[in-house]
């Protein structure tokens, strides 16, 4: 009985969420690749890449196309939240253990996590979203607002220039580039470590691709959620079939490709960076 439970799988992310994450990271990689090429134009790799993919026209086309794709993912996501909250009245999305909204508990758990790092206390019990996962989420939100607004205003500079002074475009390019660099470096170091590369998840957490986690993973990574679901008796409602082998392999191939691309970009930008 105990052994069978170890092998059981539970849903964490719906197909819609996985699709959005797929759109998010593929457009993010595309934007990073084309955008960093411009940002580090004087580097040899940037020039070689730009000429290799077909010139400036291609770089700008793909950058804008990925931007539109990411915007679409963003709008679908926001629309979905609004629908869930206002139509389905699921206010638990706005506050409580299932919510991504930062709450006092997150500050407490942050402190507790640091105490655990230093061996001064027990590991805190995280619920559905730990504080660093919430930070990842809101960092993307903030980043998309900053990068998106500055990006679209440069894309549509002539009409924007009728509303805003020209100095906005100086600020816009700086914001766009610096925030993008922050996002790229954050995702390719901190997010990769927190989610995939730390010893507890190494080499990759495939839950965002398969949507499913084992009971053991749920219990270790989200113990408060596990206990809550058990107490509510709703855990079995999340029971999932073990993901098929091809599905896990496909997830790993895509995930490793993304991580490898990320690391290459990280190294290239770090070596080319000059303030």
């Amino acid at each position: 009985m105990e052994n069978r439970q170890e092998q059981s799988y539970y849903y964490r992310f719906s197909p819609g969420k996985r699709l959005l994450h797929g759109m998010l990271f593929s457009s993010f990689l595309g934007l990073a690749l084309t955008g960093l090429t411009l940002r580090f134009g004087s580097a040899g790799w940037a020039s070689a890449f730009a000429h290799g993919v077909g010139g400036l026209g291609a770089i700008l086309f793909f950058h804008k196309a990925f931007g539109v794709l990411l915007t679409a993912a963003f709008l679908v996501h926001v629309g979905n939240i609004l629908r869930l909250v206002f139509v389905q009245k699921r206010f638990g999305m706005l506050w409580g253990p299932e919510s991504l909204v930062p709450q006092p508990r997150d500050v407490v758990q942050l402190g507790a996590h640091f105490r655990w790092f230093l061996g001064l206390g027990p590991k805190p019990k995280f619920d559905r979203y730990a504080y660093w996962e919430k930070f990842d989420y809101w960092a993307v939100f903030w980043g998309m607002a900053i990068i998106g607004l500055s990006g679209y205003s440069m894309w549509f500079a002539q009409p924007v220039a009728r509303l805003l002074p020209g100095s906005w475009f100086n600020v816009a390019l700086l914001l766009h580039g610096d925030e993008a660099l922050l996002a790229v470096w954050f995702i390719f170091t901190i997010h990769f470590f927190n989610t995939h590369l730390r010893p507890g998840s190494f080499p990759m957490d495939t839950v965002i691709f398969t949507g499913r986690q084992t009971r053991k993973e749920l219990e270790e990574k989200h113990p408060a959620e596990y206990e809550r679901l058990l107490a509510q008796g709703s855990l079995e409602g999340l029971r999932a079939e073990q993901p098929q082998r091809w599905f896990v392999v496909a997830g790993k191939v895509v995930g490793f490709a993304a991580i490898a691309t990320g690391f290459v970009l990280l190294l290239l930008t770090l070596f080319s960076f000059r303030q």
Partner: protein
Amino acid sequence: MSVAVLVLASVSWAEGSGSLSSSDCLACHGEAGFKDSKGHSASVDPKVFSTSVHSALGCQACHSDVTEFPHKLPVKTVACAGCHASADSDFQVSVHHLVMKDPSSPACLNCHGDPHAVVSVHDSRSPVYALNLPRTCGTCHGNPRLAREYGLPNVYSLYIDSIHGFALTRDGLLVAATCTSCHGAHKILAPNNPHSPVSRKNIPATCGACHAGIEAKYFRGAHGKGLRAGNSEVPVCTSCHTAHSIVSVRTASFQLKTTSRCGSCHSARAATYQDTFHGQVTALGFVVTARCWNCHRAHEILPASDPESSIAPANLQKTCGQCHENVSKGFVSYDPHANPRDSTHYPGLYYTARFMNFLMLAVFTFFGLHTILWFLRSLVERRKDGRSGEEVASK
């Protein structure tokens, strides 16, 4: 004119003395392979000599010490200066004469060839005919061994691949600039000689001999005005276009180099340019965005305070409008050289940049520490729990 008078005088003198005619001399010297007692060739091809500009003068015009047959030996070396006095006085002050006083330094014949075969400079057989001249100068100035030995500028290969060289060799244009167009012919002076046509201050006028319209624009611009005012720091034609390897300004390779060339003096402006989209695209190696001279003009460069300037506030919409459509007043209030380190002139940009620096530092300091500590704790837990190494939350 003076040469013509000399020619007439010489001819009448030769006829007057009535001693020897060219055909008398050529009776012996006209034979192929005719040699003197030391074995040096003393042969003159009568056919070649008859087409030479010197043939009408007769042999004695130059070899005046030969008055009888058989003549005494040795015959004196002919001085070209006897007739070509002004060319000679120019040559006496030239680098070819002054700098290298050893006997191997070039003299008349090195460029003009066999004196018995000398033809007009406009004759395509002449070694100093425009289309042949670079090769003649290149005998020394394109010779790597001589370049090394005498420190000569090895400029022939640079010139021949330049737009002037192509105009000459590919297009066969007699109007193309050759060596003498810029350096002069007999009176070649070192570039640091203020009288040299290629001395810094004289270069615009030298290039302007052909490029008159550009010269006029240059002197209307800040660089030209500076040169006139005696500022030796300002760029002249060659500062941007080079002296010998001049390429078409329409080539991407030239256009991409201009930003670093302007930037070698205007370094602060070049740095702020690099921060812009214009600069990023240029750095990538594409010429579709604006570079220095697209906005500032190439030759008639004027400060924004001058109403004639392309970057004067009243002219900005027109200047930016060369590339951008529907350019509004707000659009041109964009500063293509904004400096994020200058809080006085660009407070918005300055504080945005400082905030982004702070954000970057704060995020990576916090999460860097977070990540390192987490990693270390995970390793400790892994050792504690043995092979499984999972981070089990406390119950």
